[in-house]
């Protein structure tokens, strides 16, 4: 049995004449952190959308834990243990912070049908458990003190963290994040890095699309580089840094990495 949680073969996504993603092969081992990087327009986000089921591929196959999930939509993959966050913040801004996280327990309720109409013991237990677990998740991202505030009232960085907490409520095995560090300051990035490693230690596999090299270099076990929708290079952080192809793809800009 393969130790890969995700196996991708020949993945392609064409929008009319535009080949956003063209022939990507990918293997993601369990319990690792994989980063997908590349210059703008490389097709990173599209790849994430394909992996999560937000887009359907034009060609290719995706296997999750050995099962073919290529034709499954996003919500169906969530049931299997895939979760994702978005580049653009998509919180339920009118709801409270806590309610946002609780919404994430959608697939995990254990309430018999009739108790939705006439609440009983199982209903109340479920509500309490959800509330507690949601607060724990908020504690994990450092937001438990804002639990009852309107989600829209949070600062940008906090909203990003709330999105993560909400996605974690689905109890994923594979967690995909689309540019989670975008717009965060250094302290926030540091905290994010810390949380990602903590998640990995809890047994979750993580895939990050990122531009922030500090985060990528310090957190990823494996880095997958894309350019113009195609595979460019992959390897460990140390291998990426000095690879001429990668540097060329970023237009010769030096990739500065601050090593701890």
């Amino acid at each position: 049995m393969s130790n890969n949680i995700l196996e991708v073969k020949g993945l392609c996504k064409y929008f009319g004449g535009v080949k956003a993603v063209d022939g990507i092969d990918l293997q993601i081992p369990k319990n690792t952190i994989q980063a997908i990087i590349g210059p703008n327009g490389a097709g990173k986000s599209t790849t994430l959308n394909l992996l999560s089921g937000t887009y359907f591929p034009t060609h290719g196959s995706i296997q999750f834990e050995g099962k073919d999930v290529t034709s499954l939509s996003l919500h169906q993959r969530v049931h299997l243990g895939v979760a994702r966050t978005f580049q653009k913040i998509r919180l339920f801004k009118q709801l409270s912070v806590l309610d946002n996280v609780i919404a994430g327990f959608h697939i995990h309720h254990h309430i018999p049908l009739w108790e939705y109409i006439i609440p009983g013991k199982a209903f109340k237990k479920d509500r309490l458990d959800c509330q507690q677990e949601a607060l724990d998740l908020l504690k994990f991202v450092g937001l438990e003190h804002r639990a009852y505030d309107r989600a829209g009232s949070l600062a940008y960085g906090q909203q990003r963290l709330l999105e993560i907490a909400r996605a974690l409520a689905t109890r994923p095995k594979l967690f995909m994040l689309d540019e989670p560090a975008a717009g965060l300051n250094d302290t926030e990035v540091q905290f994010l890095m810390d949380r990602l490693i903590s998640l990995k230690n809890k047994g979750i596999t993580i895939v990050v699309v990122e531009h922030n090299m500090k985060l990528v270099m310090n957190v990823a076990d494996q880095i997958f580089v894309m350019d113009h929708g195609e595979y460019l290079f992959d390897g460990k952080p140390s291998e990426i840094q000095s690879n001429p192809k990668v540097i060329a793809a970023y237009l010769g800009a030096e990739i500065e990495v601050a090593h701890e």
Partner: protein
Amino acid sequence: MSNQASQKSSFPRWVWFALVFAAIAVIPMLVGGSAYWKSILISIVLNIMLAMSLNLILGYTGQLHLGHSGFFGVGAYATTLLIQKAGFNFWIAMVASSMMAGVIGILLAFFATRLKGHYLAIASMAFAVILHQILLNWDSMTSGPLGIYGIAPPPAMTIFGKLIKFNDQVNLFYLVSIFAVLVYIFLDNILRSPIGETLRAVREDEVSAASLGINTKLWKIFSFGVGAAIAGLAGSFYPSFVGTLVPDSFAVVESFTYLAMVIVGGMGTMIGPVIGAIVLTLLPEVLRDIGDARLLVYGITLTLVILFMPGGIVQGFKSLISKKTSTTSSSN
């Protein structure tokens, strides 16, 4: 709507319901012997049911639904025809036509799953127009624009040894009120449960909802189906109430009246549609001097509310309270 359990702790729910039951019991006596006002009361209750069910679809699930009159009509005609032509018992006809309306709601939901916003609004209107046209043109079944006459009220029941006849408007009012309260409790419980969270998620951001495992298509279908079924249920009581059933009672413009009730009362809250239905049914009656100004009143209130107080009367009430208690942060 943040953790309702912790919010409305001013009075436990059963106290509210006791008050409501008391009010329902007493109200008919307030209108004395006036048959006119008794029928207004029944109208109010039916409108409450229609507004609540529309609110489920529009306010909680965020679907732009402008065809609710169609479901009401299906309920009314199905009940009447099942009784008159197929010899069904009233109660069975009521259940059957409610389910039929629900099925038609599910049909409309298939459009809702593919269309968004404006497209859905127009599709739902087209739906209502088509249903109305079917009622008008299917002469053999519905007698077309002439309508169906002499519809009997629900059959008399014996409760605690007393015979209760429903040609008595007061008894009919009690009957319909009981259903309305049951519907309210049903909807309220569902919306406080994870189902309510799911629907709200669909309303706020569908892509986001999908990322939480929510099958948005399924829940839209649920919402339309249940909403339509409740409208159909209200519809079953309508023919016996009016005695004569004509298709024009279910023209598309009536959908706008239910819309007005939901918006003016407060979209996306449980009590909003109830208030809206009561206010908008009573207002034209109180202002009777202007003549047939019912729709004009709706138009004015709807426009003013949506422009200046989109959360409706409920919002107005809340801001009034928060001003009086002068809290610095009001979490909505």
